[in-house]
């Protein structure tokens, strides 16, 4: 351990003694040219690749090339200042162990924060659900994530927990599906109901044309025929569409004379039912009153 520390200190003193105008200039030049090259190569690779492979693979390939070039650039800069890469890695490892033992929770939150920054499962303003805590992300700091729940409550979650939690980000995708269930009476024509619902979807500006909405019979229920409506909306407008569509469909079905059934039971008796009816005589009632 002492040997490693000695090697790090030697490297550091070598670096400071190696800082000359020429080397700083060379390092800046390598930095600028290297990053420009990395950027250009990433774009060129992406543009060439996305025509022949799926988009996510094209992104992965171009990203890999970018980071390879960035690492080469960083190593070149370090070598300009005479830094031994092995020494830096060893020093980093030792420092990590010391810090880890000294402040395990803080470090694990900190590392989780760094990984969250890298992984980017959400950003401030995103509607999320982090293991049962649902709301809008207010802030992602290096140690914790702050969420304002739907009912306005402030919740601070340590990054360590966020990192290992199941995260649902409702705003990550550009579109989100709205699913509604509507029942019509058994006597009604499904074709007609489907036409009415399709018209409602078509009239709503925020129901997307593509992906196409789907309307189908999903269940022959005890009270009526259940129709499922699946329509896509821009993610930011999902709640508006969800709120408006159901009532619009109800109104349109009622206007078209299509019955929406309420829960009911028809009771059949195996044998004729004997019912005894007693009537009170008017005279008796009169005498009581």
């Amino acid at each position, binding site marked *: 351990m002492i040997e490693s520390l000695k090697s790090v200190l030697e490297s550091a003193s070598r670096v400071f003694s190696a800082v000359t105008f020429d080397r700083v200039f060379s390092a800046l030049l390598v930095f600028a040219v290297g990053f420009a090259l990395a950027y250009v190569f990433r774009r060129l690779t992406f543009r060439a690749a*996305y*025509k022949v492979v799926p*988009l996510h693979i094209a992104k992965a390939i171009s990203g890999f090339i970018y980071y390879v070039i960035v690492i080469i650039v960083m190593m070149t800069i370090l070598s300009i200042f005479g830094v031994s890469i092995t020494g830096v890695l060893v020093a980093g490892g030792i420092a990590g162990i010391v810090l880890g033992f000294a402040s395990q929770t803080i470090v694990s939150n900190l590392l989780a924060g760094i990984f969250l920054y890298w992984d980017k499962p959400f950003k401030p303003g995103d509607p999320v659900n982090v293991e049962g805590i649902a709301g809008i992300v207010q802030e992602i700091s290096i140690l914790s994530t702050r969420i304002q729940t739907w009912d306005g409550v402030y919740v601070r979650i340590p990054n360590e927990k966020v990192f290992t939690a199941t995260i649902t980000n409702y705003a990550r*995708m*550009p*579109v989100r599906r709205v699913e509604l269930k509507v029942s019509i009476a058994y006597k009604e024509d499904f074709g007609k109901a489907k036409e009415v619902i399709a018209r409602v979807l*078509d009239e709503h*500006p*925020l*129901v*997307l*044309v*593509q*992906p196409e909405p789907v309307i189908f019979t999903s269940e022959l229920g005890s009270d009526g025929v259940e129709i499922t409506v699946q329509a*896509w909306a*821009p993610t*930011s*407008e999902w709640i508006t569409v969800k709120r408006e569509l159901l009532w619009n469909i109800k109104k349109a079905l009622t206007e078209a004379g299509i019955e929406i059934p309420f829960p009911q039971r028809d009771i059949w008796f195996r044998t004729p039912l004997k019912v005894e009816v007693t009537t009170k005589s008017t005279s008796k009632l009169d005498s009581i009153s």
Partner: protein
Amino acid sequence: MYGNIDITKARVQLKLAERTLEFIKNADYVMYRRLKDDNLEYECMIKNPETLLIEPAAPILIPKQLTHYILIEFANDVMLPPEGELEGYTLMPVDIVVFSLKDDNYRGIDTFSECKVKYALYGPKDEGIIARYYKSRFFTNSKEPEAYKEALVPLEIVNTHNDWVKLKRILMDAVMLRLYYKQSGSFASTQKIKITITSETTALIDYGKQVHGGLKEAKRPLRLSILMHVPRKTEMMWGI
């Protein structure tokens, strides 16, 4: 009619497609009203306006700005041979903006559409983009757009791919799109749009120059002007 409103008159009433616009002059303000079937949809009091102007705008503002892309799908597909070129036209929807101007400052006071408003996703569900959707046709000859609803889009299609391609739609970026209109008329047009087809599923959209002479360039609503990202071309990566 597009263009300046004569605010020296006590009352100006303009019938567009389904809506009527009213400008009533008072002592130091103009009362603006938008009506549909005699029902008031919107009203605004404008203090000392120097000029009031009605212009077409890129159709991305209704019911609110969700995107800056416009997707025009052709009812008739266009087939092009390798190295093939074709010129033609299509129609796109327009929003209508009423501007109030004073000195060099202008502000949109009302935005509405006389056209059916629909949106669509262009691309996959995880990475695609929301675009204002419109179903039109590819025309080989110039076509008169429906007044206050549509604008003419002159097209130039070039197939650089070494195989036949089928063009079903075009994606345009409102940030680059310019609209021109006839003063005191209802005709509106965009600049020439060049579509360079690069593969069976990809194309590059270029925004050229004005084709029709004698037209005035429409102002761009503030919300469009302040968009940070200003691309010069639009890439169609997820199908043409």
